[in-house]
């Protein structure tokens, strides 16, 4: 890719990001004029009600969407690199299902979202550890099986205990409805740590991509590298899921599109996937929210259209095309 092409892509991504943030801030149930939104953002608004709508309702939603999308894509690109399979992501490795199960279980016993991050981490790391031990040779198959078992256990939990189904579905499908400033406060420190860490692993991932034998020949220690990369990927997925629920396919689609745009070099692929994941989840959420607002009878609160439903519709065709390409190759 030429320098001009790369600069063009960066400019396009920045413009899309600004456009998405503005769209999220301007669209809502209350018909707040654009001028009032701008006034709040520039600090000239005198109305506390407007400030609450823009800064406490709309802004956290778009920020959490961007951050969670970014972490899901980073998690996807890392796991894909480790298993050398572009189909791996939180929803296909069982890590998403593990995190969702732990969050749902914690909600059944202790209502309230304060423990979501810790529960998601425990669930995702435990699933990742099981995968690392039992499924290192056939991670793709083991992950799908593990995910199915964990989803079944989650359903069982819902049958046994009548948890609030709307809230629980939000974690299973993934939703950005009714995000709060506290959600963003819990998310951003992880972003600051995990995204740079993923990029620092890029040189090792490029070597690892050449196969175990070539990587050992170039001085990589396989056990250590796989453990560090998987742990980073699992923590990224858990953090995203704690903030937005187990949104499927962002970790699959964003790296896939990034690979088509910038190629296979992880030094560029990791940041490109991170940016695309953020934009993709935010765009899908804009679609989900617009549908909730426009359609009569659909709620816009917690039980509104979940963003996970939109990403599943977007992601399924990409997954099918990837599988077809795999089979041809």
């Amino acid at each position, binding site marked *: 890719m030429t320098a001009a092409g790369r600069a063009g892509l960066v400019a396009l991504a920045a413009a899309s990001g600004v456009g998405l943030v503005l769209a999220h801030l301007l669209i809502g149930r209350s018909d707040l004029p654009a001028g009032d939104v701008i006034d709040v953002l520039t600090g000239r608004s005198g109305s506390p009600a407007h400030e609450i709508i823009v800064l406490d309702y709309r802004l956290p939603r778009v920020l959490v969407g961007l951050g969670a999308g970014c972490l899901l894509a980073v998690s996807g690109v890392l796991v894909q690199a480790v298993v050398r399979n572009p189909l791996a992501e939180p929803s296909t490795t069982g890590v998403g299902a593990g995190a969702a199960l732990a969050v749902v279980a914690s909600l059944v016993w202790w209502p309230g979202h304060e423990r979501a991050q810790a529960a998601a981490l425990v669930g995702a790391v435990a699933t990742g550890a099981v995968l690392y031990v039992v499924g290192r040779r056939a991670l793709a198959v083991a992950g799908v099986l593990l995910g199915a078992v964990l989803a079944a256990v989650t359903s069982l939990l819902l049958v046994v205990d009548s948890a609030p189904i709307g809230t629980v579905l939000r974690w299973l499908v993934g939703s950005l409805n009714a995000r709060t400033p506290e959600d963003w406060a819990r998310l951003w420190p992880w972003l600051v740590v995990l995204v740079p860490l993923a990029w620092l692993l890029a040189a090792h991932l*490029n070597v690892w*991509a*050449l*196969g175990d034998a*070539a990587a*050992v020949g*170039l*001085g990589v220690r396989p056990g250590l590298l796989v453990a560090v990369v998987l742990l980073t990927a699992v923590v990224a997925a858990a953090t995203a899921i704690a903030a937005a629920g187990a949104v499927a396919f962002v970790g699959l689609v964003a790296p896939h599109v990034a690979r088509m745009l910038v190629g*296979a070099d992880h030094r560029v692929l990791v940041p490109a996937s991170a940016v695309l994941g953020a934009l993709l989840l935010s765009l899908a959420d804009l679609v989900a929210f617009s549908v909730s607002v426009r359609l009569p009878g659909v709620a816009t609160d917690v039980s509104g259209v979940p963003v996970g439903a939109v990403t599943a519709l977007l992601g399924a065709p990409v997954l099918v095309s990837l599988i077809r390409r795999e089979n041809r190759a």
Partner: protein
Amino acid sequence: MSVLAARRLDAGHGRRVVVPGLDLEIEAGTVTALVGPNGSGKSTLLMTLARVLRRQGGEVLLDGEPIDARSSVEVARRLGVLPQTAVVPLGATVREVVEQGRFPQRGAWAMLRRRDDGALWRALGLTGLTDLADRRLDSLSGGERQRAWIAMTLAQETGVLLLDEPTTYLDVRHQVDLMRLVESLRDEHGMTVVMVLHDLNQAARHADRVVALRDGRVRADGSPAAVMTPAMLAEVFGIDAVVVPDPVTGRPLFVAR
């Protein structure tokens, strides 16, 4: 002192020992060919010397010291490996793959920055890939891919090279080019090369020393003239052949009867 040595080395896969209790000394600045029938353990031995396969017992010495005494990256600065099982990363270009050979010398942090370096372009030039540098590896022929893997190993700029069937997929001209390249690496850079070859005549023509294995044991070891005999061909490969001096170099050349 030998550059690379095996002492009572047990090599194999998992718990299965393929090459038991082997002793081998590789002298600096020589080209050694490992030959033998399929399943004789020659690739297993090479990959165990390269620490790609975990050894089952015994010791591998690099420059007279146990190979584990140095970190894996330090070993990779001294010892380059061309495996048979390299994976073509989805969408990677020739340059991107060959650049990975610089990993041990430049280090992981420096690899995060893009830099054109001389070793990368020298390796591309030596394998005739300069014009294909920006092509996708998965769009190239088997022979061109094999040359890219060889270029990656050369970009590593090590004193010792272990090549597992380097001539696989190469057409005759590129096989000849590669063997001449190996000879010039030895003559001009004092490099030590150990390679697994299937073509016995190629081994006899280009190696200083031929080691013939069968069932994990060394059956013949020495100069091509000493090893390439009708008796060895019968014992190791089970073929009835005559050996004549090749008309160009006078080295032994076998023809099956």
